[in-house]
């Protein structure tokens, strides 16, 4: 039992943490009424996924993936660089999404004078009626 705990819970702690962070972000995206909070949640969620990816590429005792020929010859173990490249792209995507979302929030604030989702819905309903 104890071994299992160490194996499953402890040794892979960064995966667990990334899952916890994802849930926090997910909660904020779905349950928060404030639009900016939703965006913050989105950021937390994305970053948690990045953490997950980085954990995948990580090797205990590895070094940075910046190597030269002789280092490889000496038997250096370096961590897998491909996830890093992926994450770079994903970060770009993330910041672009955030930017679009913020632009929308600003426009909505100018339109409705609030950034609470429920209030916007209510205002819209009043206008429709």
């Amino acid at each position: 039992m104890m071994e299992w705990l160490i194996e499953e819970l402890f040794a892979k702690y960064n995966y667990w943490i990334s899952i916890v962070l994802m849930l926090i972000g997910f909660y904020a995206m779905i349950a928060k009424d404030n639009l900016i909070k939703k965006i913050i949640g989105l950021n937390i969620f994305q970053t948690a996924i990045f953490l997950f990816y980085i954990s995948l590429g990580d090797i205990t005792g590895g070094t940075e993936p910046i190597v030269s020929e002789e280092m490889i010859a000496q038997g250096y173990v370096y961590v897998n660089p491909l996830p890093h490249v992926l994450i770079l792209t994903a970060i770009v995507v993330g910041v672009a999404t955030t930017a679009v979302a913020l632009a929308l929030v600003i426009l909505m604030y100018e339109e409705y004078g609030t950034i609470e989702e429920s209030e916007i819905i209510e205002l819209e309903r009043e206008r429709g009626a």
Partner: protein
Amino acid sequence: MIFELDLVLLFLVVIIAIVAITTRDLLSAIMLLCAYSFLMAVVWVEMHSVDVAFTEAAVGAGATTAFLIAALSRTKRWEKK
């Protein structure tokens, strides 16, 4: 990687994330997000992915925060309850 430091940093990250989504002051939420990103970058350096950490520090902690604050300057600072 240094296992203890890693764990401490990660727990700190979780706590910051929770506080960031619960606080009603959006400006502090944004600053907490900035701290979150920055700590995350530290964690990643610690995991040997310097490149990503560098990017996250520049983008997550820098550009995103700047954007969020810029947006906040045109909207409201306080979340309604």
